[in-house]
């Protein structure tokens, strides 16, 4: 009434049914759910590829992949799928869609139709990537698609073109999604929900969305040049035509480095929510935590060439990029310190999401420490393209992100489905998975220090031992993954009905004030947020008793 808008909705339009509810969806929760389903499917496919890689590397010589181009395709597709179609859809599209509107007290996203096309473009990108793997010899370029390997000379068939357009299409979806998140967060916060009262998960999505918005178009430009080089005779990256293959690396990593933070910032946000909830304390140093993410996002744009130390950059350039990269350790240290300080003196409850949060902190510290080592251009000259790098980035952005995904899933599944997971089963799953990923990736540091190159399907006998250990770790991780899928099934089949707030007084954000499962529409009465960040009694869906 206040705004005098006569909304012409009827009940049917509010609750569409059948396939239309999903395909034509303009509902942030349904779209978030579809993103999570997409991520689960992609995770299975990308996971199977990684186990094939570890299977081949379990012993020297040909284990079962005698076509080395096929091995390269597996490495490429595994990377693309995990980055673009598992972690990003799950953390940003899935949890972001579900919980940003719920946490800021908004009834939906700013542009619900555009929200839907973001989902479908991501899905179309995934299909294009799967097609790429089956066209001709497949894209054996690695996810970095460096020319001249990715040029028409060395990848003449259409596989690389499919990979390029896969990223174009999925990238367009992500840019639109980023616009949507920023507009939602800046324009749709409930009364009293100032920027400095927003939950840290919302902060993390806001910073991530800015990184997506500014980094992805640069990749799109580079991909376009690669496409025209391959098909229309331009010579951006062709030395014979006066071009420069290193230009591609600049453009790719100008996107690629922010992409690392695009993956891990939402994970930071989830971990902050979980640590605070299960320590029954507000996050220590809230503002520092928020602006540490802003700082990481900003500095993330000016460190890209630390991926390119061995391309012949000048000494001054390498000195700058070393220094700038090391500076990132400061805001990252603020994050780790504040999580520990949040737990310090808290009444800690080691529920499964909390185990995953603590696991995340451990993994991120391990990967962060090796990152400080690799940031030094002099050290990187020896480590570049070895398994040390593989171990480093799997710790920081692969398994750390997966721990945040699993932790976030367990934390919020009650809210999303109305069913609570089984605690002992989830704890058992955590320990199997935690042991698995560490046995899998920790030995790769030793392999890298000993000089084992990455992206090569065979190795000398000297590397046999740790490779076997690593592959055994992959097997344990596989069991942990299957347990997780079983846990999902178990939750939906046998899960107990979840309360509106299953976590007690530690869970203070707005999503716990609505029923479980969250109704189709929430916050239709906007909550009014008080100075403590809590909704005022009687506002929104909160009953005075709460």
């Amino acid at each position, binding site marked *: 009434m*206040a705004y005098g808008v006569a909304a012409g909705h009827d009940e049917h339009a509010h609750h569409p049914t059948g396939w239309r509810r999903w395909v034509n969806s303009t509902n942030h929760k349904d779209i978030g759910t579809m993103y999570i389903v997409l991520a689960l499917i992609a995770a299975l496919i990308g996971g199977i590829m990684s186990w094939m890689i570890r299977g081949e590397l379990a012993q020297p010589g040909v284990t079962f992949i005698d076509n080395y181009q096929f091995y390269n395709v597996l490495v490429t597709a595994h990377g693309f799928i995990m980055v673009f179609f598992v972690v990003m859809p799950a953390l940003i599209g899935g949890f972001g869609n579900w919980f940003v509107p719920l946490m800021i007290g908004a*009834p939906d996203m700013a542009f619900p139709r555009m929200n839907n096309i973001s989902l479908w473009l991501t*899905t179309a990108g995934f299909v294009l990537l799967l097609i790429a793997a089956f066209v001709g010899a497949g894209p054996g370029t690695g996810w970095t698609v460096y020319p001249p390997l990715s040029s028409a000379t060395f990848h003449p068939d259409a596989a690389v073109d499919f990979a390029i357009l896969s990223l174009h299409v999925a990238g367009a979806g992500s840019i639109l999604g980023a616009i949507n998140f920023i507009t939602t967060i800046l324009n*749709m916060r409930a009364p009293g929900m100032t920027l400095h009262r927003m939950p840290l998960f919302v902060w993390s999505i806001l910073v991530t969305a800015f990184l997506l918005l500014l980094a992805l178009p640069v990749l799109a430009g580079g991909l376009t040049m690669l496409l025209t080089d391959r098909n229309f005779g331009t010579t951006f990256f062709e030395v014979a035509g006066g071009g420069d293959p290193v230009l591609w690396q*600049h453009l790719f990593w100008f996107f690629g480095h922010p992409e690392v933070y695009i993956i891990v910032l939402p994970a930071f946000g989830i971990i902050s929510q979980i640590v605070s909830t299960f320590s029954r304390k507000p996050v220590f140093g809230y503002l520092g935590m928020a602006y540490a993410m802003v700082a990481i996002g900003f500095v993330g744009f000016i460190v890209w060439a630390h991926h390119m130390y061995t391309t*012949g950059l000048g000494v001054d350039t390498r000195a700058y990029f070393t220094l700038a990269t090391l500076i990132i350790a400061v805001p990252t240290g603020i994050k780790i310190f504040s999580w520990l300080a949040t737990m310090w003196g808290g009444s800690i409850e080691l529920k499964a999401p909390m185990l995953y949060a603590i696991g995340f902190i451990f993994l991120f510290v391990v990967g962060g420490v090796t990152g400080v080592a690799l940031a030094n251009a002099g050290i990187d000259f020896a480590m570049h393209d070895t398994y040390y790098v593989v171990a480093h980035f799997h710790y920081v952005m692969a398994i750390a992100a997966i721990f945040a995904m699993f932790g976030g899933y367990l934390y919020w599944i009650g809210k999303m489905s109305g069913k609570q997971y089984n605690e002992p089963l989830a704890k058992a799953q955590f320990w199997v998975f935690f042991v698995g990923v560490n046995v899998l990736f920790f030995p790769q540091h030793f392999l890298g220090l000993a000089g084992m190159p990455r992206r090569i399907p065979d190795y000398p006998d000297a590397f046999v031992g740790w490779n076997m250990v690593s592959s055994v770790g992959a097997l344990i991780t596989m069991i942990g993954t299957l347990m997780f899928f079983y846990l999902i099934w178990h939750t939906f089949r046998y899960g107990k009905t979840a309360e509106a707030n299953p976590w007690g007084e530690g869970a203070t954000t707005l999503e716990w004030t609505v029923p479980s499962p969250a109704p189709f529409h929430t916050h239709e009465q906007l909550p009014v947020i008080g100075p403590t960040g809590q909704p005022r009694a009687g506002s929104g869906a909160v009953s005075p008793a709460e």
Partner: protein
Amino acid sequence: MATETQSHPFHMVEPSPWPALATLGAFVLAVGAIIFMHDGPPWIMAGGFLIIFYTAFVWWRDVVRESRSGFHTSVVQHGLRLGVLLFIASEVMFFFAFFWAYFDATIPAISKTAHDVWPPEGVIPFDPWGLPFLNTLILLTSGATVTAAHHAVREGDQKASVFWIGATVALGVLFLGFQMYEYGHAAFGFREGIYPSTFFMATGFHGFHVFVGVVFLAVCFFRARARHFSPEKHVGFEAAAWYWHFVDVVWLFLFVVIYWWGIVGYVGPLV
């Protein structure tokens, strides 16, 4: 249809088939383009374009209808404006990549493969003070006419707003015509190395954006004639005007950097 009043100012958009259909169009376009690039027929690609154009039309038609029905409260309008600005920011970063490619080829301080002589030997560049300068003046003038249109819209002068939007569209079309004429008279071919690569891709993508801006403004022209814009509420026109200014600024950079600075120190014939 039961009507209800909602207590918040946001627009709860009805389910819509257009996002999925547009995605189908993008998918068909991608597959069709690859088939075309690998010596296949262009028809599948054309089909993808058609689906995208169709969905663009019906999708924006729905947005206009929703706006006319009063769903776009001042809060929603603020969100739409913010969305347009963010979209333009992402477009700026797209051009950033092409300028980077140009500087990588021309500034030895940032690239080991940059050319000491630019344009590379044998390339006969355009005279910046001929047609390119004329095009600069045309776009700058169109920036003034679109601002005149904005003033007319804010003053509720419908006749003047139609006239000034129409003038802007005409100037945009004129620019595109001259640009095509210039391409037809280039002394270098598209496939002849890094100079034409950077020149044609940067100015070509700019030309494509001018085309999109012309279409955007043409839609505003018809909407202005249909009295869709009021002094208080004309987000669609504002978005078109902002987009047009963005296209204008990109051209200024192209003109200064590629046409003008690109021939500093060059001695030889010009086209």
